[in-house]
């Protein structure tokens, strides 16, 4: 695994106020990292430092091996980003905005732009003025703009802001696709775990400018089910013998953690039914990460 972004003991002080404190984090190629934290945690500030909009008070950040302060242009050549809000020129159409930014790069063809517009699903409205766009449409245009230079690193600050559920799912799909197929390293920030949980590999939790935890989503989001069955003890034994699963009996239900080799619960259900165990309910419980997040960020 190669490291694309290395954040090394970074600190940022504005007006004698420490906004980021001693933050270190490395992000690998093709990884999707979520930056999670409540309002004012310092997510945007960290992103601003990565893209060189503000000075780094302490420590250093490198992107694809280039120091963002000393080798600014080399580092930025690898980055596509939306910082804070997807602001575009409101008096230009979406198309004209993209043409505008294309002119700031070398060799972005007309076809490439059309492809991007199609990718973010804006083809219908691309010739409308941006001031008539909804927030979600601006987000989409922002993403198209960020992908213009085929970046190795994509940084999206609160990209889910303003997206409808369908748009959210689409974004998730796009990000997974970019990471898996094009090996793009992605950073997405949010203050809502539920919105980015499914698109991230890891989640870095920031609070008051400090990195307080980095959680591995796939581990943490182990699939847990609550079973209500007629004979819980019998079911427990069955699970252990047939599937090598150690389950817990809590009150009147079984807490079952699904092992990685099982993709869903259907085989368990089938086994119960075949052994004459009646099933009253099966409830997916997937909130272990969310609980942790709330706990970690609580005052």
């Amino acid at each position, binding site marked *: 695994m190669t490291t694309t972004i290395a954040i090394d003991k970074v600190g940022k002080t504005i007006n004698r106020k420490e906004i980021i404190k001693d933050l270190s984090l490395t992000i690998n190629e093709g990884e999707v990292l979520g930056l999670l934290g409540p309002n004012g945690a310092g997510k945007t500030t960290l992103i*601003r430092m990565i*893209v060189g*909009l503000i*000075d780094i008070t302490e420590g250093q950040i490198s992107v694809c091996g280039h120091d963002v302060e000393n080798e600014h242009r080399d580092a930025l050549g690898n980055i596509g980003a939306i910082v804070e809000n997807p*602001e*575009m020129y409101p*008096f*230009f159409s979406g198309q004209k905005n993209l043409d505008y930014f294309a002119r*700031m790069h070398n060799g972005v063809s007309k076809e490439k732009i059309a492809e991007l517009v199609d990718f973010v699903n804006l083809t219908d409205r691309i010739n409308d003025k941006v001031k008539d766009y909804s927030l979600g449409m601006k987000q989409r245009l922002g993403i198209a703009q960020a992908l213009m230079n085929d970046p190795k690193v994509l940084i999206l600050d609160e990209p889910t802001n303003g997206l409808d559920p369908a748009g959210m799912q689409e974004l998730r799909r796009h990000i997974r696709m970019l990471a898996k197929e094009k090996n793009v390293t992605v950073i997405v920030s949010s203050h809502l775990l539920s919105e980015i949980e499914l698109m991230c590999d890891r989640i870095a939790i920031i609070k008051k400018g400090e990195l307080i935890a980095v959680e591995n989503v796939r581990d943490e989001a182990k699939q847990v089910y609550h079973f209500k069955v007629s004979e819980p003890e019998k079911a427990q034994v069955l699970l252990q013998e047939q599937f090598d699963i150690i389950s817990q009996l809590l009150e009147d239900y079984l807490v079952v953690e699904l092992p990685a080799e099982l993709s869903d619960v259907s085989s368990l259900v089938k086994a119960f039914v075949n052994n004459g165990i009646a099933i009253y309910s099966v409830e997916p419980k997937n909130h272990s990460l969310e609980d942790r997040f709330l706990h970690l960020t609580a005052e």
Partner: protein
Amino acid sequence: MINLIINEWQKVFSRKSNIIIMVFIVGIAALMSFMPLIFQNEQANETSTYSENWESDVSQEIDTLQEETEDLLNQDDTELTFNDSMTVSLNQTEIERLSYHLEAGIEPPASNNFYSSLVSASSMNALIGIFVTIIASAMVSKEFSMGTIKLLLIRTQSRTKILTSKYITTLLLAFFYYGLLYLSTAIFALFTTDMNPTSEYVFMTMNGTYEHVQFLSYFAGLVASNLVYLVIIASLAFMLSTLTRNTSLSLGATLGAIFLGTGVTQYLASQTDLAKYLITANWSLENYLPGRTTYIDGVSLPFSAIVNVVYVAVFLGLSYYAFNKQDVL
């Protein structure tokens, strides 16, 4: 760099204020050209152009004017009315002007002639300055207020390059507005004025005597000094826009300098010698054109040129320093 300038140019031309400014400039040029036609008296019409034998025409005209003046002055014992005394003094000036033409052997142009309409258009330069200020003071600060500055700076272009493209665009636009004023003035003047019979330009000096120069060199000097003024105004507004990131503040401060500059400088000059180092005391180089004079002492063309260069260099230096250094929040 060309691409960056194209981008800036496109942004300016999608702004409503730019359209209004261009319409205004053409409108002003039209007004200035057609005004004389509306208010022209018949007398001027009659004597608008001269025949082949212009010298005798002019001598005759002088005689007529002289007779008219004498008749008025020799009226029996009554006091001269206001109108009469106006005519007398106007005739006097006209006689002096025509006599100078005769002496110098230069055929007098029509009263409403092409050269003078070009020269008087330059009195609109301060207005162009105001328009340039409107654009220049938004140049950098508007990107901040729209939030688009982030999208400009997270690309591989250096901040210096971005700022340079903005400054060049500001200057190009100032030249464009100025060019538009002159182009439309010239086109209108072709219809509303009589072409001058010679390439000489005769003008009255500050002490009331007449002199003549080649029109083209006089006009070149006028254009150059107007452009210098516009460059200074543009640089000032541009610097304020970059430093304060506040469009209205930059606009207000620069317009203040344009409107109050001369008055304040004159007042300060009466108090201290140091006033001559103010940019406002030096930015009107047309004061050094033949027949004109500066309103404060101790300045000269080379002095003003140096002061102007130093100021513009400082304006730009501060702009580049701030734009490169400051955090973009």
